[in-house]
């Protein structure tokens, strides 16, 4: 039996094992491969840098624990950049599994890097509300109407941060960190297009190709695609977070998948020939 024929009968568990080893090794011993920020990541970073200091920004974190490795590094880095500019952040979460996670992620950033930032003054988590696009449109009629209470049960109209965050017109930028539906696509369709609110987005890699046309048309000012986008954003901020640390493993895994595709295409040809 030739090596290629033997490969055709290979137990797929060897591929799983190989993938596991290739991901594990660079996490233990980093290779420190270079990360080069792309144009869309640079514009994401620049758009936040261009916000006036102290402005109130709307950030929608539409994800749940299933997309932590891609979404959480983006959220952390964006919060650090915003708080360095002393911006106030109004957070919404349109995924039912997300509010608790997002609350903890932002609270951790506050505790670790910005101990002076206070809930209700510097940021608020409006929490989850069902309705998807309907919530986005309702927010256009008034943020307080759509969210009478925040995630922690406070009356939103009693929070200092909400005194200057009543409608979309009060925000200079919308940051959408999204893992699917509802998410960036719906924010573009219902809010960017309708209320002309400038918008940047961080999305999962699997959905990123869907959003590049929005960058081309100028509907999105900047875009981060998956862990690579998060790592590029960290690089632009001179940070070394989970995304940057994961990129060596990501690169090796991609080389391995490419190799598997090449070999996989050789095997059936050989079989057909024989």
């Amino acid at each position, binding site marked *: 039996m030739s090596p290629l024929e033997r490969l055709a009968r290979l137990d797929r*568990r060897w591929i*799983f094992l190989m*993938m*596991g080893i290739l*991901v*594990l090794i660079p*996490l*233990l011993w980093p290779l420190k491969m270079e990360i080069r920020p792309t144009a869309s990541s640079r514009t994401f970073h620049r758009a936040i840098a261009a916000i006036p200091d102290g402005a109130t920004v709307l950030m929608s974190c539409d994800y749940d624990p*299933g*997309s*932590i*490795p*891609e979404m959480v590094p983006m959220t952390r880095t964006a919060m650090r950049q915003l708080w360095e500019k002393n911006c106030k952040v109004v957070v919404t979460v349109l995924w*039912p*599994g997300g*509010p608790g996670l997002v609350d903890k992620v932002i609270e951790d950033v506050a505790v670790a890097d910005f101990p002076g930032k206070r809930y209700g003054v510097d940021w608020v988590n409006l*929490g*989850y*509300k*069902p309705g998807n*696009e*309907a919530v986005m*449109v309702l927010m256009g009629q008034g943020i307080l109407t759509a969210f*009478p*209470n925040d*995630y922690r*049960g406070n009356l939103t109209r009693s929070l200092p941060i909400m005194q200057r965050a009543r409608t979309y017109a009060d925000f200079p930028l919308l940051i959408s960190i999204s893992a699917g539906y509802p998410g960036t*696509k*719906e924010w*573009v*369709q*219902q809010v*960017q*297009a*309708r209320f002309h609110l400038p918008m940047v987005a961080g999305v*999962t*890699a*699997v*959905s*990123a*190709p869907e959003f590049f*046309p929005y960058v*081309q*048309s*100028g*509907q999105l000012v900047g875009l981060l*695609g*998956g*862990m*690579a986008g998060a790592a590029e954003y960290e690089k632009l901020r001179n940070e070394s977070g*989970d995304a940057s*640390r*994961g990129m060596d*493993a*990501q690169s090796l*895994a*991609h080389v391995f*998948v490419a190799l598997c595709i090449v070999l996989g295409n050789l095997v059936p040809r050989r079989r057909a020939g024989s």
Partner: protein
Amino acid sequence: MSLHPSPDLSVWVAAFLTLCIFSFLYRDNPFYKFAEHLFVGVSAGYYIILNFWTVLVPNLGEPLLASFQGRGVVAARDGMFAASLGDYRGWLLIPALLGLMLFTRLFGRIGWMSRWPLAVIIGVFAGLKTTGYAQGDLVAQIEGSLQPLWTGDPATTINAIIFTVGLLTSLLFFFYSREPRGAFGVVSRIGIGFLMVGFGAGYGYTVMSRVSLLIGRFQFLLGDWLGLR
């Protein structure tokens, strides 16, 4: 490099469940089944409680209760129905009733009543989606696709030409009213080429997404659980 295992019991539980799920890569087994069933059960419970406390209570229960007690938002008039003064809370009885009607599906003879709230849901979302697509995708994307082929800058010009050729040939590939032969066949094949590049990019990004999940779990096991430093 040394080990500093987490003293947090919840981290140990999460690590155990992660390993249970990973065990499926070898073969189906009771540990995987246990973790899978636990996940389904906990998720169902979590979503029910979350929806009750963050949706039903603040958006329906509390406003209705306040209305029943005559505590209107507008001091000028007490009572439940004061839409003319900007207080719509009493009218929440209508969506509450529609919501309850959804459950009539569970009772065979009056099951038809569930069609009314469904009609409202479908009507609202059809309207939202149609206007959203028209504004956000159709008009804006056509506008974004109309770009000058000659910009003065060679790099931008080449980009614009490739983009326009790709756009037109890909669109023509989906023109099924004529058999793709001759010049039209060549154009269609060029369109297929552009589509394949798009599919390839999509596949690459999908691999990145899936590998990211694996990396995330390994980072949790090595960092949060074992504390390897």
